[in-house]
């Protein structure tokens, strides 16, 4: 019995003591937590101080780096100052115009030559006020060139005729326009430099050359006609063995006659002698067909076929435009003739006519060898031939080299654009002509959209 009570006593004792121990521990933990809480503001202050010191450290380090860089380059800076003066002198006395604008389009540099070219008086004094480019040089083309260079970060080139502003509107002195070529160069930080070249002389020479060629062509025309007549008269009277030579003679005369004709035509269309266009409503699909009919004999020899693709929205009957029919006929004839010449046998030539954004698009695509990349910018020049070795072989009906030049003249007369490229699929020539589209149905104000007014 005593043993049982003793056991009970021991159990109660252990429970009590463990309870005591737990509560003591709990109180200690509470006290610890309280103590930690009280110490927190100090820790926060410390952390803030150490953060501050970290920031200062970084600042000092950056400053140190900066000053060390500055220290090493100090003599170099003096050198740069000297070289800058030299460069400024070079720019100032350069035989070519140079202007420079900063990121706000304010003029910072303008040398003697550019000032003379652009009729800027007293440019050195004027530059101190940092005027805007357009204040001094009223040229939209130049402003456009600056913008294009800045946005693309690469230099470009543009040609235009600069018309200086009339200094005194009350007493207007007629100012002569000056053809100018500008090369831009991007200088970083939004700054753009522009070299200005006076093209007056070059244009004058080109005009003289064109006039001379056309004069010569005119003088050659009459004797050529009589030579041909004589050759034709002889042809019937010579022996059959000699006839072959006379035939060849006539062929060569034909060639030279067509060359002279081309030259005359070009001379007529030259700038300054702008002939009036006889504008009429022309159905383009019919025009293409009639051109092809003319060329069919040559095409059949090579078994080359034509693929005509009209506009999706406008039927062939409706696809009309206000153009000079004979000139557009000549244009298409030249292009297609060229395509046939360069197209391999059994291939087809594609001609696509479409209307996009009030622009008439005419594209011709052949499957020939195309233009070499370096020739793309020159193909519309007179007497330019892609392959000089083929020029006068006679066998290949080598063209006069004027076909594309005439084509580009015709397009220019119609205020259009002509672009030569190589087609990515066929690899052949791909000539795109853009003409302003004047649909006759547009003259009716109630029908704004041709695709709506003519349900197709």
């Amino acid at each position: 019995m005593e043993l049982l009570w003793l056991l009970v006593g021991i159990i109660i004792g252990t429970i009590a003591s463990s309870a005591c121990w737990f509560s003591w521990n709990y109180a200690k933990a509470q006290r610890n937590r309280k103590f930690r809480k009280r110490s927190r503001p100090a820790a926060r202050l410390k952390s803030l101080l150490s953060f501050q010191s970290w920031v200062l450290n970084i600042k000092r380090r950056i400053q140190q780096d900066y000053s060390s860089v500055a220290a090493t380059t100090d003599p170099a800076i003096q050198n740069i100052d000297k070289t800058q003066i030299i460069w400024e002198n070079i720019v100032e006395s350069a035989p070519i115009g140079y202007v420079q604008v900063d990121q706000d389009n304010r003029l910072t540099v303008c040398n003697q030559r550019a000032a003379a070219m652009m009729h800027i008086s007293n440019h050195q004094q004027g530059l101190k006020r940092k005027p805007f480019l357009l204040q001094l040089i009223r040229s939209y083309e130049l402003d456009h060139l600056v913008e294009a260079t800045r946005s693309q970060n690469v230099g470009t080139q543009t040609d235009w005729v600069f018309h200086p502003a009339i200094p005194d509107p009350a007493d207007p002195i007629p100012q002569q326009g000056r053809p100018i070529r500008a090369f831009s160069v991007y200088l970083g930080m939004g700054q753009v430099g522009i070299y200005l070249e006076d093209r007056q002389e070059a244009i004058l020479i080109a005009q003289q050359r064109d006039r001379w060629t056309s004069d010569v062509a005119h003088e050659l025309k009459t004797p050529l006609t009589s030579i041909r007549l004589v050759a034709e008269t002889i042809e019937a009277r010579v022996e059959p063995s000699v006839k072959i030579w006379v035939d060849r003679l006539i062929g060569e005369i034909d060639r030279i006659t067509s060359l002279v004709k081309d030259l005359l035509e070009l001379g007529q269309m030259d700038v300054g002698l702008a002939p009036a266009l006889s504008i009429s409503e022309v159905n383009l699909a019919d025009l293409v067909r009639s051109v092809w009919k003319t060329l069919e004999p040559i095409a059949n020899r090579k078994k080359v076929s034509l693929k005509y693709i009209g506009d999706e929205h406008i039927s062939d009957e409706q696809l009309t435009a206000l153009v000079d029919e004979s000139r557009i006929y000549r244009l298409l004839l030249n292009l297609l003739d060229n395509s046939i010449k360069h197209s391999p046998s059994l291939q087809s030539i594609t001609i696509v006519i479409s209307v996009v954004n009030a622009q008439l698009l005419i594209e011709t695509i052949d499957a020939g060898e195309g233009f070499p990349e370096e020739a793309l910018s020159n193909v519309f020049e007179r007497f330019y031939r892609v392959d000089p070795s083929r020029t006068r072989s006679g066998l290949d009906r080598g063209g006069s080299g004027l076909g594309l030049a005439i084509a580009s003249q015709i397009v220019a007369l119609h205020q259009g654009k002509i672009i030569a490229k190589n087609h990515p699929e066929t690899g052949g020539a791909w000539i795109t002509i853009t003409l302003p589209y004047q649909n006759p149905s547009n003259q009716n104000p109630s029908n704004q959209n041709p695709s709506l007014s003519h349900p197709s």
Partner: protein
Amino acid sequence: MSAEKLLRDYASGRRDFASLNLANANLFNSDLIGANLTKADLRRANLVLAYLNKVTFNHANLSGAKLGGATLNQAIMMSTNLSEADLHGAMLQRVNLFGANLSLANLMDANLSEADLRSVNLRGANLRCAILSAALIREERGYPPTSMSGANLCKADLRGANLTGTDLSGADLSGANLSEATLAKVNLQGANLSGAIATNAIFTESNLSSVNLTEANFKGANFNRADLKNANLHLTNLFGANLTKANISMATLSGAGLIQAVLTGCDLSRSLLDGTNLSQATLVDAYLVRANLDGADLSDAVLTRAELSGASTIGTIFSGATMPDGKIHS
């Protein structure tokens, strides 16, 4: 159907234009609020400055479309193809783009706040200076996660956005604002986060290996179990950040501020910690084998049970720090 006919029908009250072919249509500055253009073909259409609020574009094809300056607030664009579309400066607030394809799209300066961008393909997209605040970009179960690999998010506003589980590998996030954003389980491998602001952002379990985090602000950010292997944290501010069990081995932390940071159980082996401020940081159980601690400030830090074997400690400040053996350094 032509654009003119569409606008006339719309003006007369028609709203359902599903499965229409409007490729290359010119709808400049037109008003099509609330129209239904489900499965419509709008390839290369011109929708510049158009009003398209609440328009339904589900499964529509808008590849190459010009939507510069268009208003598309609350539009529904689920599974829409917007690849290579131009959305420069477009308003896309609360738009639903679930499952859309925006690869190589231009979203420069666009406003996508509160937009739903789950399971979207944004590979190579330009999101420079775009607003993506509070956008929903998290991974959805059963769908592929949103991919922004190679996207340009330079100076984008991603405050409060949820980007859980997305793929941001190789993305440019320099100068972006990621404050309060959730980037848990995100793949940021090879991304550029230099100069980014990410206070209180969550990066738990995300992959930040070889990431450029120089001069970024990660105050109070959570990097729990994140992988920062080989990352560059030069001059980064990690004040009070939580880096528990993170892997920061072979990383560059020179000059970084890790004041009050929690680095419990994290792996800092072979990392470069010269000039780092680790005052009051918790480095319990941290693994600092062969770390470079030259000139680091470890005052009042707790280094209990930390492994410092092979670590370089030339000029390191240990004042008041609790050393690995439990004793306080004096």
